[in-house]
């Protein structure tokens, strides 16, 4: 009788890292469905391109790093990075932009910075930021108009052509994003005038944003599901959204001069960012108080960049900037340990 000598605990919950990633992927489905319904099959194609690129890059670099390839591929982390990146990109981004973004995210931002669990910056956002600053043209002209505004729905073949070969066909159905549109128009027009644009649903007052709001609500739904499943806590998304709301209410109360709150919350990548990007545990703060500060920082930065910066959306930059601060925030927001009268602040001082 050979008995095992194993240290306690002897029982563990059957919920692995792969399960965590799978659950997050599952929670993205409502958002993906909405995106596809309103913006055509572009994102689905981007997901396929990004996923293939990510898996190949991951396998390659694991081989170079002499790590067990099968085990790491099965943890779904590369796949999740790829999907998040694909959802952040405009649906009809040229394939090579997607490949560059994904490759850079996996090879440099993830593995060269230490691999799973060690990377200080959100890999998907590093990839996104890289192509955003490097290839501004395809990154700003690849959003399609919401399907109700098009005469014909975008066919798969059209989408494939747009992504893989000819950029000419794309002009037929591209359009600026609501954030972009409002930001550019607000200098010359009043809110009412801007909202007359069919992108903001024209005269129909029942909803403000055509298509976009449903995408945002889809991601919100998935995010709430993840909080309920205890994949992450409520702290980061809530403080993120609250700080963005406060900023917009305080500085942007005049919708004739600034982008209104509703468009901030539902018009861009806010919900995707709040629930799926900012909550990436590896690069976020881990203490409760730290998460509140981290989330609030992202919210504020997003507002600042969107309002006074030159980019229409700002989730990637805001998240990356707060990634810098996360380790520092963690050190100064440690919880009070049981039996102690106060919490420790900062690292131990060297003698």
């Amino acid at each position, binding site marked *: 009788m050979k*008995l095992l*000598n194993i240290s306690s605990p*002897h029982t563990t919950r059957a919920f692995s890292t792969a399960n965590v990633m799978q659950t997050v992927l599952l929670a993205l489905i409502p958002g993906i469905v909405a995106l596809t319904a309103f913006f055509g099959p572009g994102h689905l194609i981007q997901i396929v391109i990004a996923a293939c690129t990510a898996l190949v890059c991951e396998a390659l670099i694991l081989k170079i790093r002499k790590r067990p390839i099968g085990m790491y591929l099965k943890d779904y*982390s590369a796949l999740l990075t790829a999907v998040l990146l694909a959802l952040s990109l405009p649906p009809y981004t040229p394939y090579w932009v997607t490949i560059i973004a994904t490759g850079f995210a996996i090879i440099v931002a993830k593995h060269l910075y230490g691999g799973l669990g060690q990377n200080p910056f959100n890999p998907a956002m590093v990839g996104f930021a890289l192509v955003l600053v490097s290839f501004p043209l395809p990154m700003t002209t690849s959003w399609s108009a919401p399907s109700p505004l098009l005469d014909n729905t975008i066919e798969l073949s059209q989408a494939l052509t747009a992504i893989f070969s000819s950029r000419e066909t794309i002009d037929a159905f591209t359009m600026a994003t609501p954030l972009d549109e409002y930001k550019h128009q607000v200098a010359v027009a009043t809110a009412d005038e801007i909202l007359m644009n069919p992108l903001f649903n024209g005269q129909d007052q029942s909803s403000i944003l055509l298509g976009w709001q449903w995408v945002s609500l889809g991601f919100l739904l998935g995010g709430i599901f993840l909080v309920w499943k205890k994949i992450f806590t409520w702290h980061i998304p809530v403080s993120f959204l609250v700080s963005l709301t406060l900023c917009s209410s305080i500085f942007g109360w005049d919708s004739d001069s600034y982008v209104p709150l509703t468009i901030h919350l539902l018009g861009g990548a806010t919900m995707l960012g709040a629930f799926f990007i900012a909550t990436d545990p590896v690069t976020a703060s*881990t203490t409760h108080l730290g998460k509140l500060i981290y989330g609030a920082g992202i919210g504020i930065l997003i507002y600042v960049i969107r309002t006074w910066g030159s980019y229409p959306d700002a989730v990637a930059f805001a998240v990356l900037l707060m990634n810098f601060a996360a380790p520092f925030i963690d050190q100064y927001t440690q919880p009070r340990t049981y*039996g102690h009268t106060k919490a420790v602040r900062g690292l131990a001082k060297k003698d």
Partner: protein
Amino acid sequence: MNLITLHEFKGGIHPPENKTQSTASPISSLKLPETLTLPIAQHIGAQSKPVVSLGDMVLKGQVIAEAQGFVSANLHAPTSGKITAIEHRVIAHPSGMSDICIEIQPDGLENWATIQGIENYLEAEPKALIEKIAASGVTGLGGAGFPTHVKASVEPSKIETLIINAAECEPYITADDMLMREQANSIIKGIEILQRIVQPKQCLIGIEDNKPEAIAALEHALKHFKDNTFNIHVVPIPTKYPSGGEKQLIEILTGKEVPAGGLPSDIGILCQNVGTCFAIYKAISKGEPLISRVTTVTGNACGQPQNFEVLLGTPVSHLLRETNTDSNQLNRLIMGGPMMGFTLEDAQTPIVKSTNCIIASSQQELPDPAYEQACIRCGMCTEACPAQLLPQQLYWFAKSSNLEQATAHNISDCIECGACAYVCPSSIPLVQYYRFAKGEIKQANADKLKSDRAKERFETRMARQEREAAEKEAKRKARAEAAAKKQAEKKAAEAAAPASSEAKAAPAADLELLQKKLDAAQNGVKKTKEKIALAEEAGDTDKVELLKGALTKSQDKMKEAAKAIASAKKAAKAEPAAAQIEMTPERMEKKVEMAESRLNTAQKRLADAKESNSEQVDALTTAVEKQQERVNEAKQALTEFLNTLSNATQLPAKPEVNLDQLKQKVLAAQTRVDKALERLNMAKEQGLETVGALQMGLDKQQAKLEEAKKALQEASA
């Protein structure tokens, strides 16, 4: 009706309970095993000391090992039988280490030693009750095994709340649950005894709400004693692991936190396990010492999971046999629960006072741990930690041996409950990392303390030596000044009375004295060298340095002495006659004696070296041989000299004149023998290692005494 406001502790987990398997049948007893193996350390504190010897027949309940000191516990024979071994055996310990165990072969008669309880115990003096508990060897039965009498010996005015820990939050374990169902009345009585001892204002029995039968039984028992019990409340608490942790239970029931590094008594709380209360009741009311306990035997490999009243010392293998455990299915054998228990590698390991559960698990039930993956900082461990630590940070610090930061992040407050490792999606054995870091920190602290002490010692010694050197220097200066003065006076006198021929004889007379000095200096050098060798062996570099200093000093002295001799000899040559005339039989005898004494010391040292197995034995043996030679030489010289003397004078040196001298010699020898004897006895009393050497010295002195006596007899005859 629940008057107690419950508080929630942060974190915690809900692992599958797996308790119903072992609660189907009541607590039963087992047939006697073939042997009982009782480790002498079944509690926290000093090991107890065996008071029986091999072959002794013992009665059930007889003390077989006594507590050593206050924080220790007695151990009693669980049944009557014969002591068949007192030796090292594998004990219940995570490392699988062995310790001294007493083995009893039961005679099957179950003959009890005379035991007696305390009558009217609720009116007895608390002190008497504590003494009885101590005599009965009662220790905490919840897990840690802290001697109960120590815990109960708190200042009664300090304790406001007595908490009875009946939470039993770990999966699988049902020992307390079943005990409460079956022995609720006795438990309440045990609690009353504790109330009598520590006089708390209230008593709360904290019990997880997954034990409705036990709660009902306790409430029924309380109703039964309604008129007599004082402020005892059964408090059902939500089922959440680790609510049964002492600190967590205190937080749930009172909202207070035990200060870090402190004890529950610091906040007016005393915690006792419910099983301990039952043991206290048996010890006080019946006088029955702690010789058995309720242990759950469960797990998928176990044929009949249930609770047993198990005699201490029963091998786990006996329990497995009696429950028809399938050894083919058995994959992991755990003593304790699945969260905090430890695996046994040897089924012969005995049940001890703190063994509440044995899990014989199959491979499917508790699969082998998965491959450790990278930490993704998901923070699930932080959410699960009941001590509000940051487990993922502690993990990084432990993994990188960053003990300083681990300490700063309060790793010492980790209770090793395993909640973090339970939830970790990356299958990281977090608790094992923390145990490693804690061990390293403990070792580092011990090392630091040691080096600090050594440093302090070294500094004190340096200061003392400096002081001494300064004093010596001052003395030397004073002496030198005095000598210079004298010299000056002498010179002045010489100048006054020049060319005195008698003065020249002085250096010759001093030759021997100088030789002695040289010998002493040489001896000193040799001794210092030996000491250096010893110090080097022991690795005491400080000492080596010091000794080297001393060595140069001795060597200087030796050189000086040699120089002095050389100059004296030169002077002696000038007057060769003077030196030879000095040779007398007395001087020669003295030389022989001196040589003999040197031989003696050399022999003594050799004996010492042999005893301590020193490497110097060889060197010392040659030294002894040399001294022996010298003695022989001196003796020969003496006889030759005597011969020549007698030849020369033709007059036998009659010893008449020496009678008195001989008598004196005998007396002196006698005192020496007495002194040696005294010293030997002292050494024996203190168990010193020098006994052998001293014995040898004594023998020699006695021989000398005999000789002296003989000489005296001959002379007087």
